[in-house]
């Protein structure tokens, strides 16, 4: 479970994230929707302990983000960006093992786990090939495997499909659903309402760092009496820009 409480991040003169609060239950996918520069990446980076919040905190699986960042890291897995980076000269397996070891996993145990997951995700054929020689889609799979190797209870996805072809997008979506089935708590950021609508149980729309609307898809449709959430999103965000 993730509970974000008044999370705020100020860069020199920009309030990138402004007093953000929301809650995501286990097995739930929360869609963080916002335009460019809305503060999605900054929010997820704070939740992944990469950035220190200016104020506010989050409780992740009963652990406080500010007080126990080391423990939070064991709980969290991240997949940031569509083209997730790998070390080209290491094999896919070595890439994943490196992160597993840095997560304090036993090397042999991690290796076995990679074999199991590679079979599950249909990667056995290229798992021992250098990452630099893999196709974009294969690389994305390696990055996915890497993000769950330490079995995190919370998954953070920051626009994980940007720049991917249709096939790869579907694989990422399947993977997110797989995480949901595993009972993980999932936060997923996107600037596309249609993508969020397809996947998420709950949506939070952020604009200039502030949460301006939140609810389940059903709630939002009822509240605004519309079936076209894409339009609603444009409207909400557009309105705010004029202010």
């Amino acid at each position, binding site marked *: 479970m993730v509970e974000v409480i008044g999370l705020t991040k100020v860069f020199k003169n920009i309030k990138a994230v402004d007093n953000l609060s929301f809650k995501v239950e286990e097995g739930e996918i929360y869609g963080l929707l916002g335009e460019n520069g809305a503060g999605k990446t900054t929010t997820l*980076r704070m939740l992944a302990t990469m950035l220190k919040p200016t104020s506010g905190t989050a409780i992740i699986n009963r652990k406080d983000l500010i007080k126990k960042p*080391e423990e939070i890291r064991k709980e969290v897995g991240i997949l940031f960006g569509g*083209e997730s980076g790998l070390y080209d000269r290491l094999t896919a397996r070595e890439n994943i093992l490196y*992160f597993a070891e840095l997560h304090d996993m036993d090397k042999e145990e991690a290796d076995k786990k990679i074999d199991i997951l590679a079979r599950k995700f249909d990667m056995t054929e290229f798992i021992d090939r250098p990452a630099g020689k893999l196709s974009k889609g294969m690389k994305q799979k390696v990055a996915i495997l890497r993000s769950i190797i330490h079995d995190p209870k919370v998954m953070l996805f920051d626009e994980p499909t940007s720049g991917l072809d249709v096939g790869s997008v579907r694989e990422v979506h399947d993977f997110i659903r797989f995480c949901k089935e595993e009972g993980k708590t999932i936060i997923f950021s996107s600037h596309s309402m249609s993508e969020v609508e397809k996947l998420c149980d709950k949506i939070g729309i952020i604009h200039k760092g502030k949460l301006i609307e939140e609810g389940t898809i059903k709630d939002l449709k009822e509240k605004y009496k519309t079936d076209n959430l894409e339009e609603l999103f444009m409207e909400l965000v557009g309105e705010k820009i004029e202010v």
Partner: protein
Amino acid sequence: MRKLKFKHVYIVLKKELKDIFRDKKTWIVTILLPALFIPIMMYIVIGGAESISEQKISETKIAIIDEGNNAKFINYLKSTGISIVTGLQNPKESLEKGDIRAIVVIPSDFDKNIEEGKNADLTIQVDMSNMKSSNAENMIRGLIKEYANNIVKERLIAKGIDPKILDPIEVKTENIASQSKMAGSFLAFIVPMLLTLWTATGGMGAAVDLAAGEKERGTLEPLLTTSASRLSIMAGKYLAVTTMALISAIASLLGLFASFSLNKDMASLNADFRLSTTAIVVMFVAAFFTASIFAALELALSAYAKSFKEGQTYISPLMFIAIIPAYLVMYKMPNEIPISYFAIPVFGTISIFKELLYGIINMTHIGIFVFSSIVYVAISIYIAALMFKQEWALFRV
């Protein structure tokens, strides 16, 4: 989060070295280039000089055109050992082709004129467009001058005058330096500069790749969310960069020693030149300190850079920090080096190298150097560690 965990440091170090060494470029830039640099330079400098001065007198072929019967002078030339080619159809053509280096044309009455106490003249034909031929001219002029000096002496003696009158001042140069000292001075001239240069540049490629490159690839974010602290990650990367710098420095040293043992002229110097074990140990320590300082600074700059390219831009000027002090110390003799130099980064390294290569082991200097280096290493590592903790540096936009 701030804790240094050796297990993580080791994992990072191991991975980075594996990654680096799978790159062929690394082998070329950090090992092959430093190793071959000195041998190639020596081959060009010494080899080039040699091929000109190679003209030992016995290997210099000349032809003589005797227009009379000047046996006396020809016998003198023969006695010098110069190689006289006879029976040529067309000496001029041979000269043009480079088969011979010069032609000495002796007029018919040459010997006679000298015997009679008159002046005589002589022509040397050379091909000035050919280095070796024009060198032969110098050589022949020298021989003739010697011949002429003897004639002058004979004539003076005949007149009852002491020939010493011609040389009122006699200058003698005595070289008190032993062979090993001379070898040392040559080494001391060039090695500190090269060693410092390679310790500074050897880790650059790795430093750029290990921080800025990590950002560009997008591997930094997942890396920072592992259980390894930033300090541990930084430490592992720092050790990897230091290792690369040291490998470069050692490769260049091996290249130097190899060229010494392969080059026949150098080998004679080498035989007399011995570094004591203490000197080698101190040199290694000094190289390690210097590599450490540069590695930490390079990594700090790389962590600040947004991309690979930006990283290279920030890091390459560090080379001047190595070259300028090296140049300033290069022409100083060990006893001219101010004691303060030993406490200044890079200056200290070069000065220590220089002393050691001169066979000097001055514990005060080494002490100052080691102590100040430890401080600098600590400061530079602190800067690198600080940079790795700064989100404004790691996540610059």
